[in-house]
């Protein structure tokens, strides 16, 4: 992203909670980030770290109740999404902002043809006639690499393989030339070879169409391959944020460092055991007055247990939420 360009999406202090019978679950705690035009932001974290919930809250896709955005600001091209009417929000969804979800097997409606499901957003957002929309739908299927596109429009989702269905989902998301594509673990449910194809496809499409992408994943390898910037989430918070090269070269947060150690390396020594992160992800039942990672952290000290660290800058566009300084290997004084 060119420095200084206005971000397409700017999120400040977003807090999303789920009101359940057992009390409030703070799924997203004061999350702030931005996405520039044409940029690819990777969001990494384990299951339950709040990465999907964060992105789903942005466009009001969480079921409410139980989910509720309690505070924060979501600016899409400068206008606050939270203050938008339902109709304005609908115009964004599927129009300016496209979504791809995790499980292509269940994300498409089984009783409608792929063509029908592709034509829907085209008619709503672009006001195309049925015929024009169908022609455009065929183009889109062709764009995402589905052979014999025109004929396949009248097929049902169950007649496509998993990878092909995910291509259809991508075609739906891209239908109305979105400026922002939110991809929620789009490759998690797929075979590794298909994963590679989908990643390659998104990389190509991004070059052709130039939209910004938020790519949610728990696979660091995927992020390393395609992202410009990476955001690491843990316990509903952003614990580290850096350009992709910087993050892999110079990880600061103990959690990021531990995550990197869990990735097998082709060039590593054979006898080195693959590390795992001990312990369980934190329960999000209450807003913590301590670092959420404290219980699993190897560098934990007394301050971590009584205070939740704020994000602090450690380099150019690189910040970390930790009291421990990875460079000096000592508690940070500030």
């Amino acid at each position: 992203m060119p420095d200084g360009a206005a971000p397409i999406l700017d999120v400040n202090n977003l807090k999303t909670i789920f009101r359940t019978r057992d009390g409030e679950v703070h799924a997203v705690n004061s999350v702030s980030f931005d996405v520039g035009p044409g940029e690819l932001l990777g969001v990494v974290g384990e299951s339950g770290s709040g990465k999907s919930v964060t992105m789903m809250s942005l466009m009001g896709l969480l079921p409410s109740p139980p989910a509720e955005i309690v505070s924060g600001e979501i600016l899409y091209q400068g206008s606050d999404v939270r203050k938008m009417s339902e109709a304005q929000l609908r115009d964004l969804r599927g129009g300016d902002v496209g979504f791809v979800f995790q499980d292509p097997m269940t994300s498409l409606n089984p009783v409608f043809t792929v063509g029908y499901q592709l034509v829907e957003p085209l008619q709503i957002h672009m006001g195309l006639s049925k015929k024009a929309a169908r022609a455009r739908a065929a183009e889109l299927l062709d764009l995402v690499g589905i052979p014999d596109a025109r004929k396949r429009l009248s097929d049902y989702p169950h007649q496509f393989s998993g990878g092909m269905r995910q291509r259809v989902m991508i075609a739906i998301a891209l239908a109305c030339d979105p400026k922002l594509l939110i991809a929620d673990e789009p490759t998690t449910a797929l075979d590794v070879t298909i994963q590679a194809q989908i990643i390659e496809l998104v990389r190509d499409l991004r070059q052709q169409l130039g939209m910004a992408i938020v790519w949610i994943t728990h696979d660091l390898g995927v992020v390393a391959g395609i992202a410009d910037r990476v955001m690491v989430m843990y316990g509903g918070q952003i614990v580290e944020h850096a350009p992709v090269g910087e993050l892999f070269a110079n990880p600061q947060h103990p959690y990021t460092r531990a995550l990197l150690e869990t990735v097998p390396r082709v060039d590593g020594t054979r006898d080195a055991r693959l590390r795992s992160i001990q312990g369980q992800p934190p329960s999000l039942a209450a807003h913590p007055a301590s670092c959420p990672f404290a219980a699993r952290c190897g560098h934990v000290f007394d301050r971590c247990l009584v205070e939740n660290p704020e994000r602090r800058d450690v380099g150019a566009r690189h910040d970390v939420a930790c009291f421990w300084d990875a460079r000096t290997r000592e508690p940070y004084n500030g």
Partner: protein
Amino acid sequence: MFTYTLRRLAFAVPTLLIISFIIFVILDMAPNDPTASLPLTIPPEVRQQIRDALGLDQPMPIRYFKWCVQFFWNEPVNLIEQWTGWTIGDSESRLRVISWQTRSPVVDLIAERMPQTLWVVGMSYVVGILIAIPIGVISAYKQYSWFDQFGTLFSMAGFSVPTFFTGLLFIVIFSVNLQWFPSVYDTTHRVTDWDSFWFQVRQMIMPVMVLALFNASQISRFMRASMLDNLQQDYVRTARAKGLRERAVLLIHVLRNSMIPVVTVIALGVPQIFGGAIITEQIFRVNGLGQLLIVGIQSADIPLVQTLTFIFAVLIVLFNLVADVLYGILDPRIRYD
């Protein structure tokens, strides 16, 4: 799909033959005596002659075979003659299935009673579905809202309170106290102008509503459960992410999927319409098929009971097939062959 339907129809033939035989055997084992309701002054040997005249002196397999010939051959031939005006063979001596009590052909009796049942019970089914589907949809969409709570109460009440109770309750309230509707259904009433049409509507309202309440309470629960299942699905989120209006998400994407099991339930319930609502027909004095069956059983009118029961069996087999075919049409994942 077409060959599947044909194959299923072919399979239905042996099934129905076996059913008809079982019905015949069961009715034969019942300790019925068609002369029991005759005056006690008739001496036993005369009674025996009456029984012989009805064909009861012959062994069971022969009587079954005769019924088969009458029902599967003579009656259809007779129907064709009536429709086309042709004469096929010796139509005078062709034996039809005759009711022991009324001495008239059973099929004619059924044809006479059918319109009342179809109007009252069929209408109640349609009204029930029309009430049930919106209730189910809204209840599921606004789960645990006051509307849903009320809907649950409504269906619990409708399902657990028997129709003879609601029927009598309606009569007490609307006929006796308010005097809005007649309590007895006049089968001989003919609709000729607006006034007589209005009378027909008024006399139908109570029996239709009693049955519709019962049907609606069942179907609305199915509808609600099915909607709730589908509202959880990922494709609903996809539909919202495409920017569809909430109404379109609900009434196009979710409803179409939710209707699949409900349509099956509805199709399987259709034979019950023809079966009539025995109790409700009795309460409101509707001369329908249910009432015909009850009278037939009470007077040991075996040919009538046998034929009616068998027709119900045919309808059940047929609508099972209809349900399966509809399932295949609604759900592209289950297209046969």
